[in-house]
């Protein structure tokens, strides 16, 4: 039996219908139209579908759409401030931290969570914080550098 779910998604109140066994990932992609949420595996191994649920980093493929009732969801579509990109978004482009780009939304979500909790992470901390996001193109080198650079920019701004 379909359910009517009411959530706050990227700052807006959004009602969507979903099946009780439908994942939040499918609901966001197919019911709400947020295609920036990517499916790479559907089993929590690749991180491409990462979103923030009540401020916590989760794989939306491992959350039921029904669980989002009354909760807040943030996706990559809500990351920039209008046309003004988040420093992570800017640095990912500048450092060529993406080649094909399919993993990028998930990496951005994970990196944002990392930098909120740890504004000055070491390379090792960055690597472990991003271990839940698979990238097959870059070898991660440029991703780590982009996060380091974005962290520096964000620290400067917050001073």
């Amino acid at each position, binding site marked *: 039996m379909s359910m009517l779910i009411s959530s706050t998604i990227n700052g807006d109140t959004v009602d969507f219908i979903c099946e009780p066994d439908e994942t939040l990932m499918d609901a966001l992609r197919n019911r709400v139209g947020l295609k920036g949420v990517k499916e790479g595996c559907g*089993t929590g191994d690749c991180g491409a579908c990462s979103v923030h649920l009540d401020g916590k980093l989760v794989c939306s493929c491992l959350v039921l759409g029904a669980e989002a009732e009354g909760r807040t969801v943030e996706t990559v579509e809500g990351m920039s401030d209008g046309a003004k990109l988040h420093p992570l978004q800017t640095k990912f482009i500048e450092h060529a931290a993406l080649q094909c780009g399919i993993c990028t939304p998930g990496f951005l979500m994970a990196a944002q969570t990392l930098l909120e909790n740890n504004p000055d992470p070491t390379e090792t901390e960055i690597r472990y914080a991003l271990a*839940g996001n698979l990238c097959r193109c870059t070898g991660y080198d440029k991703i780590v550098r982009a996060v380091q650079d974005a962290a520096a920019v964000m620290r400067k701004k917050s001073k």
Partner: protein
Amino acid sequence: MLYQSPHTAAEAVDLLKKSKGSVHVLAGGSDLLVRMKGGFIEPDLIVDIKRIPATQQIKASKSGFIIGAAVSCAELAQNKALVKAWPGVVEAANLIGSDQIQSRCTMAGNLCNASPAADSVPALIAANAEAVIQGPKGKRVIPVAKVVTGPGKTSLKKGEFIEALKLPSGSAKSGDAYLRFIPRTEMDIAVVSAAVNLSIDAKKVVTDARVALGAVAPTALLVPAGAKALIGSKLEEEALEKLGAACAKACNPIDDKRGTIDFRVKVAKVLATRAAKAAYARAGGK
């Protein structure tokens, strides 16, 4: 299929008891949803226990800790008293999956999934943890070691669910540690794992110990002979060798995609020894 998210344990028990067909309890969902995606299960009812207040709390008292079944593993690491008392248990729980998984996965779920390779279970068994079970006949408490009966199987009865896990209070002279072997640095399931929990006296002699192994048998194993090898020792070479031998003897693993019998037995010895040293150091031994 139906999804329900009751607000009390009684409601949850009622739903579980009356349900027909395939019914599953949802805590973190990091195993349940994977099994659904793979088509291994097709639930008729999912009971989400996260909105029951008791499942969301960590309560510390003189007698120990009560950890709600829906407390995420990430939250465990933020509880300083828990980390201080049971660093090995928290470490084990924090090894499960990525940061994304950590926001969701729970120790109770890890236990009920009943995988022989579950990371938190050997640590919980070594720590002598107990499970608080809610059911049609009220609450009951059993050792964690009695929950899992085989791969994918638990001793929980119809209508029952785990509401919380109980850990004893730690002491200054005790320490625990958990180590697992995975081929990568993250994201893998344990190929073999070992947990050691021990206490020492003023002379740094081990007075009490519990040793548990994961992924070497159908369920996580308590290895009393391993504990015996440590008790009375200061972790001298001889004691560690005996520990290793006891662990190797207790192993009853399989060959599978994740590892061979031979490899698991060899590495079980290595990890048990390393975990014993780490636990000993945490207890103040070295």
